[in-house]
Each structure stands twice: as C-alpha cells, then as structure tokens.
C-alpha cells in the first residue's frame, strides 16, 4: 500500500508540474461554459436585411416599420432590382431580402389575400430558417391585429406550457455533453498519452521490472486524472449554478456517483487504447477517433439522435457518453432519482467491466 502511494505521488508530480497542460485541462470547461452559455445562441440580432417595397401602401409600410423596430434586423430600405439583390447576397452583405410586390396593397384590400416575398441566403441554413421565422411571426402579428376588428366565433385556443425549461434556455442541453467531452479528453486521451509516453521513452520498462505488480504501476497513473476529472465536474456544476443559474434539481450525491462511474469507464477506455498503441501520436489519433468524435457526434449532445439514419442510431448505443448524457439530464434537469436511470447505469457499468477485462488481457499478452 505504501508503495502504491509512492507511485501515485510520483504521478501527481508529473501531472501537476506540467502547468500548461493543467491550465488547458482546467480552463477548457470554463471557456466552454462561457462560450456555450453566452456566445452560442440561435437568436440572431441585427441581421442585415434589405426591404424592397414596390407597393408603398399602408400595410407594407406598417409591416416594414414593425420589422425595423425589432431588434433582430438591421434594415436597409432600398429599391433594389433582382440583379442588385443577387449581387448583395453574393458579396455576403445581406442575409435576407423582403420584397413587397407592386400589387401588394391592392391585393390585400380587394382580394383579401396578398403575398410578401422573402428571400433568404440559405447557404447558411440556420440563419435562413431563423430569419424567415422572425419575419413570419412579425407578419403573423400584424395579421392578428387586423383580426381583432372582426371577432371570430368558435375559437380553439391552445395554451402552451414549456416543461422543465420554461425560459427555453439552451444551456441545459450542453452541460451533460460538455462533462462527457472533458472526461474523454482527460480520462481517455491524456491518460492514454501519458502511459504510451513512458513506453515511447523507454521508462515503462524500468517501472515494469520493479518488484511491484504491473497493474499497480498502471493504476497509479490513472489516479491524478481521476482527480482532475472530479475537479472538472465540480467546476462545471459550480459555473452552471452561478453563471447560468442552473441548479441540480436531483440529488448531487447521485450525480457524483454516476460521474465517478463514467470516469472509471473512460479511464478503462484510455487504458485499452494505451495497451494497443505504440506511439503517442497513435494514441492521440486513436482516442480522437474512438472517443472524441463519437461523443461529439453520436451522444445526442450536439445533434439529436432521432434525426440520424438508423445505422448511426444503432451505433450510438455503444457510445458511453450517450448513456451518460441521459443520466445527467435526468438528474440535473428533470430531478429524477435512481429508479429512472438504473438501466443506463447498468449499461455504463457493464461497459466498464468489459473494457477493463479487455485491457487487462491485452496487457498480459504484451508482458508475456
């Protein structure tokens, strides 16, 4: 036990002496929280658009005023020709053009039906969709005002309630994913690199011929990364509480327990990668391919899984982060207890045992 402690101490020295790496590892969650929490939203403000009003009637002016008044748009009123609009789009100067055709006012008055042409630059789909929605809702608003005059019978009025997240904050979705990402970085990639580094520099052989069990030598390398991960979870939770006003609704203890399980799972993955790679670069690209990308793409944290084609949905089941994502959401946001997530817990536990057994076998073979 004392020997193990001295090994662990040596690893701590290694890890904590490298200030730059440490700064990055601790800084990443902080920067991510700030970016995700404050910079990366889908709400667009002050988008440059052109309103071309060929009709110049009462309604078109009113709608234009409404568009101008909204904080979403930065309106340039200009009677541009079709070609000029096209040029402006090509240069990337405008994101959208709202065109009132010449007969807009007339049609609305006499036919009770008129058209507004909205042209969006769909080379950026996200912006295009959002902006089109904004204009639609402004126009719908104007219509509703018109409607007030005529009282309409037989009205069905839907009442909408937003569960769990009434202010529709986006932060909810990324906190679990971010935790998973950081674990992948710290527990898988950094762990794998640090083990393979000893292999590459030949110091591993020296450790392995020492009278301690090889597995113990390896285990002691994992401890600092486990600690770093726990610190990271804590800093993410604190930041999300104080900056994003996002408390943990369920049991914090349960969250930490599940976090610990996931850390162990990631560490075993890192271990496995380290036993099969010969160079640090292989270990790095291996962990990038095997963990980072799946976590980013297939864990449901950035992109909804149900939108993916079936093969990807099937593959997503072997990505541990997917299950962790569900667990964290259930505890943090929905406030559910263990009974709601025992299945996911079991899956991650099973994966951990499997990965550990596999890397233990690989390790034995390498030593033999």
């Amino acid at each position, binding site marked *: 036990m004392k020997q193990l402690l001295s090994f662990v101490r040596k690893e701590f020295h290694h890890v904590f002496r490298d200030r730059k790496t440490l700064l990055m590892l601790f800084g*990443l969650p902080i920067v991510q929280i700030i*970016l995700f929490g404050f*910079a990366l939203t889908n709400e667009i403000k*002050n988008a440059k658009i052109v309103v071309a009003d060929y009709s110049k009637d009462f309604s078109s002016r009113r709608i234009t005023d409404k568009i101008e008044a909204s904080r979403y748009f930065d309106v340039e009123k200009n009677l541009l020709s079709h070609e000029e609009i096209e040029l402006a789009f090509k240069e990337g100067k405008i994101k959208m053009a709202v065109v009132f055709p010449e007969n807009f006012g007339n049609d609305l008055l006499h036919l009770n039906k008129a058209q507004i*042409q909205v042209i969006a630059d769909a080379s950026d789909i996200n912006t295009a969709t959002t902006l089109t929605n904004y204009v639609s809702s402004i126009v719908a608003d104007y219509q509703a005002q018109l409607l007030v005059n005529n009282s309409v019978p*037989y009205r069905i009025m839907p009442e909408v309630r937003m569960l769990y997240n009434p202010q529709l904050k986006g932060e909810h979705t990324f906190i679990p994913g971010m935790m998973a990402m950081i674990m992948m970085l710290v527990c898988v*990639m950094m762990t794998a690199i640090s083990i393979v580094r000893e292999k590459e520099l030949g110091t591993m052989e020296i450790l392995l011929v020492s009278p301690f069990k090889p597995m113990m030598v390896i285990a002691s390398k994992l401890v600092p990364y486990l600690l770093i991960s726990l610190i990271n979870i804590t800093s993410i939770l604190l930041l999300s509480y104080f900056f994003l006003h996002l408390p943990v609704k369920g049991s914090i203890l349960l969250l930490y327990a599940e976090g610990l399980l996931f850390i162990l799972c990631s560490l075993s993955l890192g271990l496995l990668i380290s036993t099969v790679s010969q160079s640090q670069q292989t270990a790095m690209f291996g962990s990038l391919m095997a963990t980072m990308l799946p976590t980013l793409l297939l864990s449901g944290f950035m992109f909804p899984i149900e939108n993916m084609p079936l093969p990807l949905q099937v593959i997503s089941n072997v990505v541990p982060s997917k299950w962790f994502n569900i667990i964290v959401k259930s505890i943090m946001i929905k406030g559910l207890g263990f009974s709601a997530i025992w299945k996911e817990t079991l899956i991650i536990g099973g994966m951990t045992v499997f990965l550990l057994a596999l890397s233990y076998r690989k390790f034995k073979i390498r030593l033999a």
Partner: protein
Amino acid sequence: MRTLKFLLQKEFLQIFRNKTLLRSILIAPLMQLIILPWAANYEVKNISLAIVDNDHSGYSQKLATKIFSSGYFKPAGAGLSYREAEKLIESDQADIILEIPPGFERNLVREGQQKLFIAANAINGTKALVGSGYLGGIITGFNSEIRLQWITPPRFNPAPVIEITASNWYNPLMNYKVFMVPGILVMLVTMIGSMMCALNIVKEKEIGTIEQINVTPIRKYHFILGKLIPFWVIGMVVFTLGLVIAWLLYGIVPLGNIGLLYAFLAVYLLAVLGIGLLISTYSTTQQQAMSLSFFFIMIFNLMSGLFTPIESMPGWAQVITQFNPLSYFISVMRMVVLKGSEFSDISHSLLVVSVFAVVLNGWAILNYRKTS
C-alpha cells in the same frame, strides 16, 4: 536549397512510414464527412406526441387524425392519462403532450370557445418551440375547417390573409448536408494541419533529435520550411479528397471557381500551420502540444459559425470570431461553393487570412529562436 531537399525527403519518408498516422489522416476525414452531415441535423421532425384525450368525441378524434397525418408527429402511446403521458416525457419517449379537456366538443359549440393544453419538453428548446408551433398551426387549420362547416360561407367575411412565399437561395431545398459539408471540410483541414504540425515538431523535441538538428548547419527557416511544406501538401490532399467525397456522396459541386478555392486554401493552410508551429514552440511534450491545440481548436471550431451563426453571437463574441481564421474560410467556402462568389467578393477575407499567416508564422519563428 539542397538542405531543404534532404529535409523534405526525410519528412515524407517518416510520414509515409507511419501507417497508423497516415490512416488516421485519411480515414478520419472520410468518416467525418460521411457521418457528420447525417448526424449534424437540426431539422425538427418525428416529434413524439402524446395525446391525452379526455373528451373522446368525434372532434377530438378528428383533430388527432389531422395532427398525425401532417407528417411532423408520430404518436407516443394511446389512450393515455395525463400522468402516463408525463411519465413518457420523463423517459424521453414523448416530446409534447396535447391534452384535450373533457367537454371539448360541447363547450366549443355552446360557448364558442375552448382551450387546449399543450406541454412540451423544453430541455430541447428548439424542438419544443418548433413542435408546439407546428401543433398550433395544425390546430388553427382545424379550427377554420370546423368554423367553415358551422357558418354559412357567404355571410362570413374572411379575415385578410398575408402569405409569405419564402425562397431560399443557394440551397433551395434547405439541404442540411449542402450547408454542413463545406464547413466540416474546413474544420478537418484545420485540425489535421495544426495538430499534426505541432505534434511532429514537439515529437522531435521530446525524443531529442531536434538537438542533433540544431548542431548541424541547417538554418531555422530550412527546418521550419521542411516541416511546413509536407503538412501543407497533406492539407491540400485532404481537402481534395474531401471535395471528391462531397461530390460523390452529396453531389456538391462548387458553383464558383475551384481555382479560387485552392488559392484561398493555399494561404489559409499557411495560417493554420502557423498555429501548429506556434503551439510547438510553447510545448515541450506531445501531451502539452495536444492539450494546447485541443483547447484552441475547440474554441476556433465553436466560434467559427459552423454550428451556430455568427450573427447570433453577442458583440464581444463576434469580435473574437474576427480573430478566428476558421470563420473566414468557412464563410468563403460557403460563398464560393454554394453561391459562386468571385474573387472580388472574398478578397477581403483573403487579405485578412494572409495577415494571419504572416503574423502567426513570424511569431512562431521569433519564438522558436528564443527557445533554442
């Protein structure tokens, strides 16, 4: 010149000998280009809707049929109580609950108005918003249908309707893949270029061969060129590979001039390799280089406009994007590939990226001198 020849020969030999690395350089982009556009799909569809029908009337059933025939919704459970529907939401099996109160039909006829209750799981805000929006639209449609049935048409003066005809230029079908692929390609070239360049140099530091190089008459700029050129070539190859995949798999053919794209890429790669070089001068171990490049590339990626539009960022964040080479190339890619923009349209970005290339490489070279 002769020195450079030998340096390049050595680098290429090493790169081509490292099969695992080579495979990841080539396969990683392939995989990403194949998977990411499918995965990175924010379109809202297949919304699971749990209907709690407490009325069991002809109208409530008609409404349900109309909703599910719209194609946006799929039913989650049948004959549910509100409590059961709530459970479905908790376990993520349902996204939205529509509750039809008892006496829905009767009240609508007698009192002329009736409420419906919609509860959406707002953890995924977009889905909740868009989903309840769709649902609202369908209900409004249903509403006017029954209104027309009950009121004799001629007497009723319909409300004025303003229609919006939306045309989406450059990507008329709003194809998500067309939108994502060019951006992803930029992300890949950036990651491969900067990380590999940084790691490669730091590896020589860690193993000690750089010491040997330093006592030879090789000049710093020879050494740096010897490192930059191979990865510049690799960047070009990966990009070309990506364009071919984009064409074969997604039918994306750049509308604009391909030569223009490559010209921009050539300068852009210099900037990216400059980042790698700079990271290498600040690191002594590969682990350090990796965590440094991971940190910055993560920020660059998030702040590039690839996943969320730059226009939607707050002012301070938009300022950051102006110092992010990625955001320039992504916007140029989208402009040239999807809109067919010309040289004059992208000249400003080209200029900025050239400045990046000069500053980053200059900084790296200065710093490289100091550390040795």
